[in-house]
């Protein structure tokens, strides 16, 4: 398990990460979510020991010392590859740095798994963006690390390779690896992650099991679709916090009885449909951020 305890990092008086605490459990995938500039990359760099926190501690399985490099796999958001050397040399170099045993066999196996077997002698800059991303991913997992940190791993991948990557992540999860997945694409996170940590302006907004977060936020909203769109502006809605999307209006019911509200609306005008809105992670994130700012 990785325990991130109250870490902070400041640059020129600006808090990039502010008192962040998250626990990441083995055998689960934890998503670090937040908009650009939220502090995800700074938090990950501290996790990777690339930079040190101004305060706070990071523990790996209870120990403050960082695990050896062959126990950690890191895929940065942007490129992260030498452009003018071959695919094979890239993997050999990092395998040597991480003291990977049977490196040649593992390199060959992974290259074929990702359909790059025929490209082992190609220079990295001759590969497409998607293939470079695949190479970067292979480089991250080649040494079978216990802790895996992936920053936007699906960037540039086609659906087939996204599927292969998901399969591998599932395998790693089953093997008990501790996986951190950072992204600003909430739909990807919803599909992959077991746990999430929502970060904004360096601060943790909420964290925990994804299913519980979705459940806890799900029953407070109604999606109302009137037969006549003119009713979207009905004065009845003035007493609620609302959001109009297309031909529907989303209604925050708060502590009121949903049955009572539905009955009231039904009595006022004809409806196409009314249902309990199932908010996505993005909705929850926006709502939570707005809630904090309010």
């Amino acid at each position: 398990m990785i325990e991130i305890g109250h870490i902070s990092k400041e640059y020129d008086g600006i808090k990039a990460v502010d008192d962040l605490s998250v626990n990441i459990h083995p055998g689960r995938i934890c998503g670090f979510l937040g908009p650009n500039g939220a502090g995800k990359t700074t938090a990950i760099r501290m996790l990777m020991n690339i930079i040190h926190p101004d305060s706070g501690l990071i523990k790996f399985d209870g120990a403050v010392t960082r695990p050896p490099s062959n126990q950690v796999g890191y895929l940065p958001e942007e490129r992260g590859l030498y452009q003018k050397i071959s695919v094979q040399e890239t993997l050999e170099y990092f395998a040597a740095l991480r003291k990977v045993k049977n490196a040649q066999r593992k390199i060959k196996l992974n290259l074929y798994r990702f359909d790059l077997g025929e490209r082992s002698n190609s220079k990295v800059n001759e590969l497409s963006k998607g293939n470079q991303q695949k190479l970067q991913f292979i480089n991250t997992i080649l040494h079978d690390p216990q802790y895996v940190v992936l920053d936007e791993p699906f960037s540039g991948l086609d659906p087939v390779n996204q599927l292969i990557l998901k399969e591998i992540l599932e395998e790693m999860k089953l093997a008990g690896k501790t996986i951190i997945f950072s992204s600003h694409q909430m739909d990807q996170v919803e599909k992959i992650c077991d746990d999430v940590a929502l970060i904004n302006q360096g601060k943790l907004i909420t964290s925990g099991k994804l299913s519980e977060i979705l459940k806890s936020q799900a029953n407070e909203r109604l999606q109302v679709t009137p037969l006549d769109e003119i009713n979207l502006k009905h004065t009845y809605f003035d007493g609620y916090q609302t959001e109009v999307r297309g031909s529907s209006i989303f209604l925050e019911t708060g502590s009121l009885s949903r049955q009572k509200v539905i009955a009231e609306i039904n009595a006022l005008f004809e409806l196409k449909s009314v249902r309990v809105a199932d908010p996505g992670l993005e909705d929850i994130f926006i709502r939570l951020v707005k809630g904090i700012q309010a």
Partner: protein
Amino acid sequence: MSLLQIAWFEYRRRIRSKWFIIGTFGMPILIMGISLVTGFMADASAGLETKQYGLIDETSYFGKKLSQALDLRYADEETPPLDIAVAEGEFSELRNQYDMLVTDNFLDAYFVIPADFRSTAQIRNYSRTSTNIHVYEVLETELKDLLIEDKTQQFQLSPEVIEALFFDIDVTHYDVGATEKREQDELIADYIAPFIFMFLLLIGIFTGGQLLLRAVLEERSSRVIEVLLSTVSYNDLMGGKILGLGLLGLTQSAIYLTLGVVAGHYYDLSLITPIIGLLYFAYFILGYLLYAGIYIGVGALFDSEQEAQQAIQIITFIAIIPALLWTLVIENPNSTLVNVLCYFPPVTPFFMMIKIAVGETTVFQVMSTLIILTISVYGGIRASAKVFRTGILLYGKRVNLTEIMRWIKA
């Protein structure tokens, strides 16, 4: 050891690159090629054209004689450098005509031998642009001989007296305690060898520095640095790079020194002794490490090569100092200026290698400069390690000198 693996990676990928092979073997070939071509051109007078000059001879004597002397001088040359058309007469009468000939490009310039030339020994030159200095030298030599000949007749001196009066001095050189005189080739080698050592040091150290700068910028801009730093420590990464590219410079130097030994053996010249070779490597290593710290620190501060190169320009200026002053060191190796510069670490390796090559240094000076350089390298590398550690992940941020100093002091 991650440091050694990084060093080997850096060394291997660059020594196999075509640019290293072209640079290492191409440069001496290019220099030799240029020497041979210019030598050939000088011998064959290739690319030269005969300059046309006019001559107004007020003495009605020396002009004709000079023309004959020049014909004799350039008898074997297909394209003599100059041709002089002599006209006897008064300058005041011919001036306008000759000025026009020059203006209309029929003549490159014209000379005047005045009537009082015998007593003044002065001639005049009229031209639109500056006349080739070589032409002056030729005319001065030939007219001096003609004037001497004229005066011998005037004073009725015999040719024996002339021969006894005009002769060249020849200095024969011996090493102290030696009985055999030194050949001219050896004397030239004495002058050229120190320059070559300094030149090799400059090339090796600054090429290594530039490669380091590019290596850091490449890893920074491609974000490989993040993957590396999640795998190895800052010290291993920086140390590995410095070591790998330093070994590359040493390989290059070893190739050049070996070529120097072979060439010296072929021409029977003792260019490189074991002690000079040893000291060359000592100064190379320390000089390289001193500049490596600076280059790697600068590389960690900038996002683009263009910005980094601008910042490093001051270093290039330091490199010019030994390139400008090398003749001073050879001719005055023990002057105060040279001795002071020997203790200024950024130029110590270059000046000391020249002094060592000309044999004008002491064991004390060698030892003390090596110690000072070692201390400077230690301080420089420590400071640059702090800059590297702090600056390498600061993307898109302009860093000022005050900030850098704060990092170093931290």
